[in-house]
């Protein structure tokens, strides 16, 4: 029974046994656990004056304290939550938009419709994302989590659209689709069975890429002071560290560690993505 299951979903099998995927996934899960349960591990509030300032990591303060005595670990895990949330929502929105546009453009590839959509996509690709985000975010008085996610997603989707479109295009021209077309199977069923099922793994990988991108864009905005107006975020923790001369003062636990967690998370996701690429793509499997 199990064998049948794996035989039908051989992609999944390869995915879950790939070393890279396992390695990356375990780190990702760890980080998510940290974000979810981290705040329970600490007895401080993120804005509370938890002790003496300028303390390096210890059993009292896992990541040390900031210059005015706030606990860095608490700030990091709370900030991680916020940043991950915005990144995830933004990534989802961006993937959705990108998929729809890319899908449609790819399916109607070559027509004027496709041309227009691609023109739109290219325009959004060319506009310098952060500059535009800065200008927009600056004009919003209050920025909540959702608003931020929408802003970030609005400049992130073009990448997905292009990728999905080219994948759709190549699939469209595959023999089995042409076969289905000749057999006059309905467009909807073609889309569902032939194209979408093959796209799923691809879209999943695209989503991971998107998530990486939106998290980076989010944390950059936060670092520049344009993050959510209330609460704390990872970028804000790092901004404080830079603004209060954490670097010059040698406070590596404050200036380096929070960002390191994010970098590790994104690296791990990269690993997962590469592993999945190999799993889903037989041509790469021997690597």
């Amino acid at each position, binding site marked *: 029974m199990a064998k049948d299951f794996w035989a039908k979903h051989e992609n999944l099998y390869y995915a879950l046994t790939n070393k890279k995927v396992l390695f990356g996934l375990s780190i990702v899960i760890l980080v998510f656990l940290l974000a979810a349960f981290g705040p329970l591990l600490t007895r401080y509030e993120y804005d509370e004056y938890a002790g003496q300032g300028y303390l390096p990591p210890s059993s009292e303060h896992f990541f040390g304290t900031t210059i005015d005595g706030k606990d860095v670990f608490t700030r990091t895990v709370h900030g991680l939550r916020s940043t991950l949330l915005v990144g995830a929502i933004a990534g989802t929105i961006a993937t959705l938009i990108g998929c729809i546009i890319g899908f449609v453009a790819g399916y109607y590839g070559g027509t004027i419709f496709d041309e227009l959509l691609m023109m739109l996509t290219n*325009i959004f690709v*060319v*506009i*310098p994302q952060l500059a535009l985000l*800065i*200008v927009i975010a600056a*004009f919003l008085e209050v920025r909540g989590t959702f608003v931020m996610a929408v802003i970030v997603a609005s400049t992130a989707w073009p990448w997905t659209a292009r990728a999905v479109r080219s994948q759709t295009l190549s699939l469209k021209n595959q023999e089995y689709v042409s076969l289905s077309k000749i057999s006059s199977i309905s467009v909807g069923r073609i889309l569902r069975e032939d194209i979408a099922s093959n796209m799923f793994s691809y879209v999943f990988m695209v989503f991971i890429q998107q998530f990486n991108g939106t998290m980076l864009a989010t944390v950059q905005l936060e670092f520049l002071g344009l993050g959510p107006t209330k609460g704390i975020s990872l970028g804000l923790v790092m901004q404080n560290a830079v603004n209060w001369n954490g670097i010059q003062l040698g406070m590596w636990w404050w200036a380096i560690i929070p960002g390191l967690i994010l970098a*590790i998370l994104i690296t791990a996701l990269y690993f997962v993505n590469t592993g999945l690429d190999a799993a889903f793509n037989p041509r790469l499997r021997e690597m």
Partner: protein
Amino acid sequence: MGKYLRKKLMIYIITFILAVTINFIIPRMMPGDPIQSLLSRFSGMEGGRQILEEQLTLLFNLDQPVWQQYLNFWKSVFTLDFGISIIQFPTPVIDIIKRAIVYDLSVLFPAIILSWIVGNKLGAYSGTDKKVDNASMPFFYFLASSPYFWMAGLVAFFFGVVLQWFPISGAYSAVASPALSWNFIKNFLHHWFLPFFTMFLVQLGGWAIGMRNMIMYEKSSNYSKYMETLGSSKKLIRKYGFRNGVLPQVTGLALRIGRIVGGAITVQVVFNYPGLGRMLLDAVQNQDYFLMQGIFLTIVTMVLVANFVVDIVYMFIDPRVRLSFTEEV
């Protein structure tokens, strides 16, 4: 070929129009009365009132119909008259931009080019040698995953604070004056290195990964397998694979320029490097609308020009485009 260029140009022109329009719309959509607030800020400065009236007539003349204001706005764009800055009153915005752009270009130009070249070479090497690949891939992933400003902090901490080899703030030191002297050049380069190095490192990872993936794809292609059976050297296979793999990397460069510029902004903040990026942030935080609009437009234009240059380069290296076999770019 012509069609290819024409399409690209159209995209860029539309984007430019969009950017100018965004600049036009935003102050008018602001809650409250940004023009009143501008007036009151300028009136506090010496001679401010008359300068302001001139600027307002130029850019905001509210008794005229909107379409006329829009046309006037375009006129000011083409005459490069972006108004007067508030935070550096009474310097005209265009002067501030002219001064700051040097610092952006001096870091971005070498960083983009060098990281692209070195990254692609390293990636190609990695793609053909499994041992190297296993060792270096995690490293490249890590570089590519690092937020620019975090890498800047890391680099600043290590090279600036621990080793004390480089300064970590400013474009040149307080007692130096810009001049054609060797002293000043040394000073400038000393401050320039870490921002450059940061931009270089992060991008390096991205290119290496991209090229490595391309090479691997090419390796499993027919011509590659054929060469292998013929007993060609790894180096030769790599060379051919590279030639094919480089194409998407050039496209990738065009796609990424927007992101790279964004990263540069945050790096400038960390190193207090007086480029356009940091000035944009200052302008936003101080609600210096004229400066903000001027810089935004400049950044967009720079990116558009860079994209166009890359497109032309691509045209020359991809024979398919030259011969219009496909529009798939």
